[in-house]
């Protein structure tokens, strides 16, 4: 009896060992391409073409980063990515909060219909809107204007943002707001001074996923923006790599610069990001 028990625990240990090994191998596959990217971003072309791809750079060429940052317009694209992302996120969250407040706190007949309109928006494939949107911005002279990008990002992120906010608003107790109404506070005061501060946790979740979507967006900016001065990193690196397609170090450095802000954010806010991605799972 005793030996049998020992046997099963031994088998269990081996089994767990195998499972850990599989999980570790998967983790390796998820991470190694990025490590390899950092390694080749620090190499010269001679090293890339002649030495083993696994070898560490003999003399890390940090100047690859300095070169693309100053000469490759990457600093400009980076700055554009930052401000377009931030403005669109702020606009999305304020508009979505206003709508969610009106739908969950105020009394009007069409609220269900309006909510439905926003929720159906989750299913719309963005590419199907591309040609009419391009034509529309062309006609109102907003093609090659960052405003077109900010408004488009906002419009397409409203449904998912409202959906996430709605879940939070519905669980939030209304006593404080109701008391404020009875005390004669204006609706604006209630919204800005009571509701918005109370919804900060969910606002930060939606802000993070909106940030990731906007930072990584490609097809709208690629279609609506043609001037270099308005391009963001996704399109910028695409152009840059088109020009320097044989300089591995420069390409690697550009890619690392473009993904670093998201990775650093993940390092500090991984729980929030995990929560946001799970909540935003339904976005198309």
């Amino acid at each position, binding site marked *: 009896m005793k030996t049998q028990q020992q046997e099963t625990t031994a088998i269990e240990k081996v089994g767990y060992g195998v499972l850990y090994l*599989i*999980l570790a191998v*998967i*983790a390796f596959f*998820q*991470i190694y*391409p990025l490590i*390899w*990217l950092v390694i080749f971003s620090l190499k010269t072309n001679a090293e890339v*073409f002649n030495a*083993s*791809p696994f070898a560490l750079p003999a003399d890390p060429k940090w100047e690859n980063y300095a070169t693309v940052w100053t000469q490759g317009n990457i600093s400009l694209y980076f700055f554009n990515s930052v401000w377009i992302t931030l403005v669109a996120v702020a606009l999305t969250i304020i*508009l979505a909060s*206003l*709508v969610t*407040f009106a739908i969950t706190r*105020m*009394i009007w007949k069409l609220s269900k219909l*309006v909510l439905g*309109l926003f929720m159906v928006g989750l*299913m*719309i*494939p963005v*590419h*199907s*809107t*591309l*040609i*009419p949107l*391009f*034509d*529309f911005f062309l006609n109102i002279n907003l093609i090659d204007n960052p405003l077109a990008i900010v408004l488009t990002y906002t*419009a*397409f992120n*409203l449904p998912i943002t*409202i959906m996430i906010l709605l879940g939070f608003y519905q669980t939030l107790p209304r006593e404080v707001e109701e008391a404020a*109404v009875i005390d004669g506070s204006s*609706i604006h005061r209630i*919204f800005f001074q009571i509701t918005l501060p109370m919804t900060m946790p969910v606002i930060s979740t939606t802000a993070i996923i909106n940030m990731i979507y906007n*930072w*990584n967006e*490609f*097809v709208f900016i690629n279609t609506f923006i043609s001037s270099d001065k308005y391009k963001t990193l*996704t*399109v910028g*690196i*695409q152009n840059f790599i088109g020009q320097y397609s044989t300089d*591995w170090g420069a*390409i690697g450095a550009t*890619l690392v610069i*473009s*993904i670093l802000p*998201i990775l650093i954010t*993940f390092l500090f806010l*991984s729980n929030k*990001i*995990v929560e946001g*991605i*799970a909540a935003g799972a339904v976005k*198309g």
Partner: protein
Amino acid sequence: MKKVLSNKFIIAMYVLPALLLILILVYIPIILTGYYGLMRWDGIGEMDFIGLKNYQVLIGDSDFWESTWHSILLAIFSALSLIGYLAISLVLAAKIKGANLLRKIYLIPMLLSSVAIAQLWLKIYHPTNGLLNSVLVRMGVDNPPAWLAEPSLVLGAIFVPIIWQYAGFYILIYYAALKNIPDSTIEAAKIDGATPLQISYLIKVPLIANVIKVTIVLAVVGSLKYFDLIFVMTGGGPNGASEVIASYMYKQAFASYNFGYGSAVGFALLLITLLATVLMQRLTKSEEVQY
């Protein structure tokens, strides 16, 4: 109180900005894409109404159907890969130390832009200096293929970074669902003598069936709309071997200046994704499972 909360002016002020934005930038364009499909139009000049001509051409357009077939293949692959993600999640959720850290590591590629992922994998697949072929040569393979230049290999080669990108996302969703199963249910099964494998397949998987259905819809519908990664990695080539519906639409409009025909393809994309959504929801519809 009711009077204050039903102030029409304030409601309009709160709702209209967002509502107008989504109507003008999402709903009107989606209707217009079907309408523009009725035009002959180069994107700049006058539109020429030609009735259903574009849609008739579309039905007989073998390039369109081939790209649709590629999109469907991606959807099938994506749905099948869910089985692997589910298996990994079952292991992760079964009292594994460090599970939380592991699922975060798995998620990292999901945070990157498709453009960055595509550029990185272009380097991995590079015929002579890429990571993959370097490994193959060291393992003794004489002439490893140029993965993205072979019509028979390109779709499979593109699917690998797609798995790399989305694995962590689905594992995250399954893991969260599995962690929601009450311990008492599992304990009861253990007392009844169920093996860990039986617990996984007979108890845990049925209990998260609803989440699995949602992920099937997500994977299928998401794949049908796939664009960025393919556009950057191959542009649909070689010779259309990796063309998908969205990239075909883009090419028709913004490379060939057939904006009318491109709109018709865009409208077909809308119909196909809506059809797939309804179909997948029907196929996966069943009774709620109670804990």
